């Protein structure tokens, strides 16, 4: 009988939505993906279409995860700071996607440098959420 009670309990616990720490890890993952794809494009090692599609995917995913996370932000981080860094990151990524089409490497490099700064901040925020949970 116990077995029949345990199985639904395990499934109920298992069906929990992603935690704030997992969402922050995903945000860091996508900002870093955009950065690495950008680096590769500047070194002429990846095709334009792949780079643009990856940057657009990063932008869309960040929008989605960010919106979910900001609905109930973790207490350990300032939601205004998180919102601001996400908005800036998405802006840089969107610009980079546009500059790939224009094949404008110098401006792309500037946006990538700015994204790198935000990436550091995202990493710190992810670290603070991870350590508080």
């Amino acid at each position, binding site marked *: 009988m116990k077995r029949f009670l345990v199985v639904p309990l395990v499934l109920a*616990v298992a069906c*929990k939505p992603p935690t704030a720490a997992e969402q922050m890890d995903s945000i860091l993952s996508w900002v870093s993906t955009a950065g690495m794809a950008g680096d*590769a494009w500047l070194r002429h090692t990846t095709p334009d279409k792949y780079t643009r599609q990856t940057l657009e*995917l990063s932008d869309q995913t960040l929008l989605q995860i960010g919106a979910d996370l900001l609905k109930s932000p973790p207490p350990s981080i300032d939601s205004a700071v998180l919102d601001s860094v996400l908005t800036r990151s998405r802006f840089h990524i969107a610009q980079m996607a546009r500059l790939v089409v224009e094949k404008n490497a110098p401006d792309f490099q500037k946006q990538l440098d700015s994204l790198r700064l935000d990436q550091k901040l995202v990493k710190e925020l992810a670290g603070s959420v991870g350590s508080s949970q």
Partner: protein
Amino acid sequence: MKKIFQLALGIITSVGGFLEIGSVTTSAQAGAQFGYRLLWPILFGTICLIFLIEMSGRLAAVSKHTIVDALRERFGFPFFFVVLVGIALVAFMVLIAELGGIGFALQLLTGISFPLWALPVSFFVWLLMWKGTFSLIENGASLLGLVTLSFAVAAIKMHPDWSGVASGLLPTMPEADKARYGFLTVSILGATISPYLMYFYSSGAIEDEWDRSYIPMNRVIATFGMTFGGFLSMAVLVAAALALQPRGIQVDTFPQAALLTTTALPRWGFYLFALSMLFACFGAALEISLSIAYFFSQGFGWNWSEDLEPSKNSRFAFVYTLIIILAAIPLLLGVDPIKVTMMSMALTSATLPFAIVPFLFLMNDPIYLGKFRNGWISNSVVAIVILISFALALISIPLEIIGG
């Protein structure tokens, strides 16, 4: 001389055909998230696979039966049918994932979205099945799959910490993300110990008309082919641990996985990754389609051989035609192959007991194997696989959900 050539070809094709979407995805995710910590399930799974593949070849060479033939004959059709449904369903999911992997590889190379590749890719796989021979499928696709050696080159070029790699070969528990760690362990084992490989290998031994003189060769091919293949899976994990983990990149999608080799191999890494996925998934899609067709045809007692004209084994050809069409449908609808891959790998683990327990009985049956029955080492290894796969079957479903 002919056997030496067959031996070399057998080892080379085993290496070239080892990686597929499941092993690449699970190893890349594991390396990106846990560094070298999850090397041990690859090692463990590869050792188990060496024994299981050797047994599959030995059964065919001695008894002239494929595993499916012998299962049906030994346990009767009703029991066989239960096993058939479970294993065929999981293999079908793996086929969807492999066809999706080909589509994604083509998306990387062309920029054309993967659902648009579903029909041409499925048609090409079907055409090769329809027109090709067993040796073309076995050797051709696997030889192309040798491009996956680029993962080993990438891993070595990134100068891994070898003591860290060695310590990853021993099981350890992480401080955080234990559920994810468990799920990835299950998925890696499912990706490595795929029952369809056993069915494909034993059917191939019958297609190639193996007899008892092939037993030593079978042992060498199983040992060296699977060992080198296991090294390739480890290379993917090591490359992901070095290229992606320090940046915090998780492998949730193919575009992220494609960055795996761009650091170590700046000039060609991206294209080598795409070609590796293309050929590895292509070879696996052919093998799985063939395995499912073998499975049904041998189970129902129909004519079967990839070397026969489709008109001479129409039901065999009908099975692979139908499953390839059905597998294309979810891809046309845009189902994410990575999600299908992770689900199918965990379900593979869950079905391992159904595939392996009856197989163990067969391998100890003197009617089929006479003096070539399993020794205690083979039996112990298979028993361990059964125990672990039972445990995995119990935990894999909730872990699948926790793992996202």
